[in-house]
């Protein structure tokens, strides 16, 4: 195989970072959820890459489980977005600050 596993891991790290920056900087809950998907997928890539490295199917199973969990997370997140919309709230996470001290 001509491409080394570390290359995949590096791509994964870069994608993870981009997603993280999105989560940290964006204020729209929709974009944050999309960025989270990027992070989760980059980790999936890592899992698959390591799985290839050791030759077992464990990592791929993990990746599938991650997909399932990600789907659940999206459902809840989008549910929240819909609920916010129905209550005519502003879709801006910076405005949701009842948690302040």
């Amino acid at each position, binding site marked *: 195989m001509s491409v080394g596993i570390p290359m995949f891991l590096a791509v994964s*790290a870069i994608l993870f970072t*981009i997603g993280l920056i999105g989560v940290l900087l964006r204020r729209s809950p929709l974009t944050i959820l999309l960025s989270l998907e990027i992070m989760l997928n980059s980790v999936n890539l890592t899992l698959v890459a390591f799985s*290839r490295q050791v030759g077992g199917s464990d990592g791929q199973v993990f990746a599938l489980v991650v*997909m399932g969990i990600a789907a659940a997370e999206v459902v809840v997140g989008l549910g929240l977005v819909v609920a916010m*919309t*129905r209550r005519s709230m502003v879709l801006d996470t910076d405005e949701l600050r009842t948690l302040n001290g």
Partner: protein
Amino acid sequence: MDLVVFFVASVCAIASAIAVVAQKNPFVSALALLANLASLAALMLLLEAQFVAAAQIIVYAGAVMVMFLFVIAYVGPRGEIGPGVRKPWLVALSVFAALLIAVEVVVVVMGASLGTVVTVDASYGSPAAIGEALVTDYLLAFEVVSVILFMAAVAGVVFGAGGRPVRLSADQVLAKEGESAVERRREASRAALEAARDSTTGESAR
């Protein structure tokens, strides 16, 4: 050949990821994410994980992204919020921390000696192999995921369906949606009033 595919796919992935994060319009972001997922699937194919790659396309592109697009369409233009620039220190620190993590990971990964890659036969990554692992060694995880998905479905229904839409006063709408929205509503109510008046005059004339 592999190398070419790898570079094309990874450049695509990174570029589309940046697009996801940078786009103001969530609709465009979502489409960019689709491209990202497709490139990732290509990368996974390079890693001979055919089943996961297929699942990636089917589950994400087929199901999750459709849901995303539905919600984005439901929310409409209110979902459009640009990058947060209101707190420079927050932005600076965020970028710094994220880049630090990236650098650290890349340093570790590039510096690590992973050893030779195992050669695998044709059954590697096949649905049969994955399925067997899923219902034998990882049965518990499998079941737990199903329970979590179920709970998420319930939660989604509760969040989405619960509560009545709130009717706002003009001031609140103004505060939240800006001048144009109030104008729009005023316009609509005026039109409705006109229509009502027309119908009553019509009746009385008859």
